[in-house]
C-alpha cells in the first residue's frame, strides 16, 4: 500500500491505516465538547457554537467541492434561507423544532430549484451561476421588506423551548441548554454526512469529481447525482443557518452575501478539501485566527486572506494533512515503542 494513497484517501482510511488512534482522539474531543460548559465561560461557548455551525456549513459545501468537484459561491443564499425560514416560524410558533425543520426544508427546496438550473454547468460557469443566485437571494432579503424586514432584518426572535408535545419540554433561554442542542444537532449532522460520503452514493460522487465522461459510461446520470449533492449541500447550509436565529435573536441580509459564502470556502481550504474532517478543522482555525486578528485590527479579512493563502500554498492538503502525514503516524510509533512485545 503506497504512502500517498493513505495520505490522499482521507479519514475514510483512518481505521485501516492508523488503528484506533483517531477514534480515541475523536471520542476525547466529543467528551471535551460535552464538558465544555462546565469548564469555560459564555464567550467560549458562544464561539464553539459558531465553530460547530460553520463546520456543518463547510461540510455541506465540501460535499460539492471535495467530493463532487463543484465550486459553489452561493451557499450563503441557502444559509440565509435556513435562517430566515427558521426566524419566521419562531416569530409565529415559539417552538424550536418546527423552526429548525422549516428552515432546513426551506433551504432544501431553494437548493433543489436553483440546483436544477445550475448543475447543467461546471467549473467557472457553475461557480458564477451559484454566485448570481446567491446574490439574488441577498437582494430579496434586502428589498422584500414586508417579508424579511429589509436592511433591518428580523429582530426579537425568541430562543424558543425544545418541545415535543407530551414527551419533552426543555427551556432554551439559557446559553448552556442551547449549546447542548447545537452540539447534538451538529454531531448528528456530521455523522450522517460521514455515512453518506462513505456510501455507494459518496463513492459515485467522487467518480463524478474525477471524470464526468467516464462516470456516464458506468450508467450514471451525472446531472441527477449532482442535483442530489447540491440539494444535500443546501440542506446542510439551511441547517447551519437555522441554528443562527435562536442564538443571535436576529437575522439580517448580510447572511446571504457572497462574502459569507467565502467562509466555508476558506474553512475548507484551511482544513483540507480531500478529507472529511478538513472543513471541521478549518472552521475551528477560521474562528480562532479571526478572534485573534480582530483584537488588533478591523481589517481582519485581509490578514485572514493572507494566512489562508500562505497555508494553501504551503500545505495544499490543508492542516489535516499534517495530522495524517506526521502526527498520527508519530503517535502510533510512540505507542508501538511503548507496548510490550
Amino acid at each position, binding site marked *: 500500500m503506497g504512502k500517498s494513497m493513505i495520505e490522499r484517501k482521507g479519514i475514510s482510511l483512518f481505521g485501516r491505516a492508523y488503528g484506533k488512534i483517531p477514534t480515541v482522539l475523536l471520542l476525547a474531543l466529543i467528551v471535551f465538547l460535552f464538558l465544555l460548559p462546565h469548564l469555560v465561560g459564555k464567550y467560549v461557548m458562544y464561539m464553539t457554537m459558531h465553530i460547530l455551525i460553520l463546520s456543518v456549513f463547510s461540510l455541506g459545501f465540501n460535499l460539492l467541492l471535495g467530493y463532487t468537484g463543484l465550486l459553489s459561491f452561493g451557499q450563503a443564499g441557502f444559509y440565509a434561507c435556513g435562517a430566515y425560514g427558521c426566524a419566521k416560524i419562531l416569530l409565529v410558533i415559539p417552538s424550536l423544532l418546527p423552526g429548525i425543520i422549516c428552515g432546513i426544508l426551506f433551504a432544501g427546496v431553494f437548493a433543489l430549484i436553483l440546483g436544477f438550473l445550475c448543475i447543467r454547468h461546471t467549473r467557472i460557469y457553475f461557480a458564477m451561476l451559484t454566485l448570481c443566485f446567491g446574490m439574488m437571494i441577498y437582494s430579496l432579503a434586502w428589498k422584500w421588506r414586508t417579508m424579511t424586514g429589509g436592511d433591518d432584518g428580523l429582530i426579537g426572535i425568541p430562543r424558543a423551548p425544545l418541545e415535543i408535545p407530551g414527551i419533552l419540554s426543555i427551556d432554551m433561554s439559557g446559553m448552556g441548554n442551547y449549546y447542548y442542542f447545537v452540539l447534538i444537532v451538529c454531531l448528528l449532522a456530521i455523522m450522517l454526512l460521514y455515512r453518506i460520503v462513505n456510501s*455507494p452514493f459518496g463513492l459515485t460522487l467522487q467518480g463524478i469529481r474525477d471524470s464526468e465522461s467516464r462516470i456516464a459510461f458506468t450508467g450514471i446520470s451525472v446531472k441527477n447525482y449532482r442535483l442530489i449533492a447540491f440539494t444535500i449541500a443546501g440542506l446542510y447550509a439551511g441547517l447551519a443557518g437555522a441554528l443562527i436565529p435562536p442564538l443571535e435573536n436576529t437575522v439580517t441580509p448580510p447572511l446571504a452575501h457572497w462574502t459569507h459564502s467565502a467562509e466555508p470556502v476558506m474553512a475548507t481550504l484551511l482544513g483540507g478539501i480531500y478529507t472529511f474532517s478538513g472543513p471541521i478543522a478549518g472552521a475551528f482555525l477560521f474562528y480562532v485566527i479571526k478572534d485573534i486578528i480582530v483584537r488588533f485590527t478591523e481589517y481582519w479579512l485581509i490578514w485572514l486572506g493572507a494566512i489562508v493563502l500562505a497555508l494553501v500554498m504551503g500545505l495544499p492538503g490543508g492542516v489535516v494533512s499534517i495530522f495524517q502525514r506526521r502526527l498520527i503516524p508519530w503517535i502510533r510509533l510512540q505507542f508501538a515503542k511503548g507496548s510490550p512485545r
Partner: protein
Amino acid sequence: MTELLRTEDLSKAFGHFIAVDSVTINFTMDTLTSIIGPNGAGKTTLINLLTGSLPMDSGRIFFKGEEITKIPTNERVKRGIGRSFQIMNIFPMLTVFQNVQIPVLSLLNKSLKFFSRLDAHREVINEVERISKEVGLWDKREVLAGELSHGDQRLLEMSIAIASQPELCFLDEPTSGMNPRERVKILENIRRLSKERRTTFIIVEHDMDVVFSLSDRIVVMHRGGIIADGKPDEIKENQNVKEVYLGEELEEEII
C-alpha cells in the same frame, strides 16, 4: 449472425469539416471488428456518435432492433453499450478497487444507497474481485489509479468498461503507448473476454499487427466515409485501401 448495432446515414460535421459522412453500417454479435483509417478519418467521432458522447447532425442508430438515436449515454450503457477512451479516462484519485466498484454498483442498482457502508454489499465486492483478478489487477487493488503504470491504467480502463457487462464494447486505441509486454497482456484479455463473457468488441486501432491478428472483420474509414469492409484477408487485398489509405506502407507491413 445476430445484428447488434446498426446505423442509417449517420453524419456529423464540425463547421465545414465533415467528420462522419452518411455512414450506414451494422455490427453483429460475436464478431470482433476493427475500425481503421488515417488520422482524421472519423473513427473516434463515429464511436462518440454511437455511444452518445457527441450529438449527431443526422441519421439513426438502432441497438438490438430498438432505436437509441436520442437516448443519452448513461441509458445506452444500461442497454448494453460500453467503451474505453482514446485518452486515458479513469478515476485517478480512487483506488483500483474503487474504480471497478463504481460501475458494478451502478450495474447492480446500488449507487443510490445513501446510508449503507461500501463493504456491506457482498455481491459487489465479489464481482469487483472477480473482474480485478480476471484482468490481473487484483494485487494492485489498493493502489491509486493515478499511480499505476500506463499499461495498467489501460487495463483498468478496460476493466471499468467491462464491469458494466456490456454486450457491445468500443475500445478506442486500447494498446496506444504500451510496451510489447503490456500489449500482449491487453490483447490476451480482449480475446479471452470476447469468448468468455461473449462481449462483442469494436476496436479503433492504428497498430496493424494488432488489427490483423485480432479482428474477425475490418472496417476502413477515410474522410468520414467507409471505403472498405470485410475480413482481414479481403482488406489486405483491397486495392482501394492500398491506394487511398494505406499505400505502400501497409503493403510492406502486412505482406
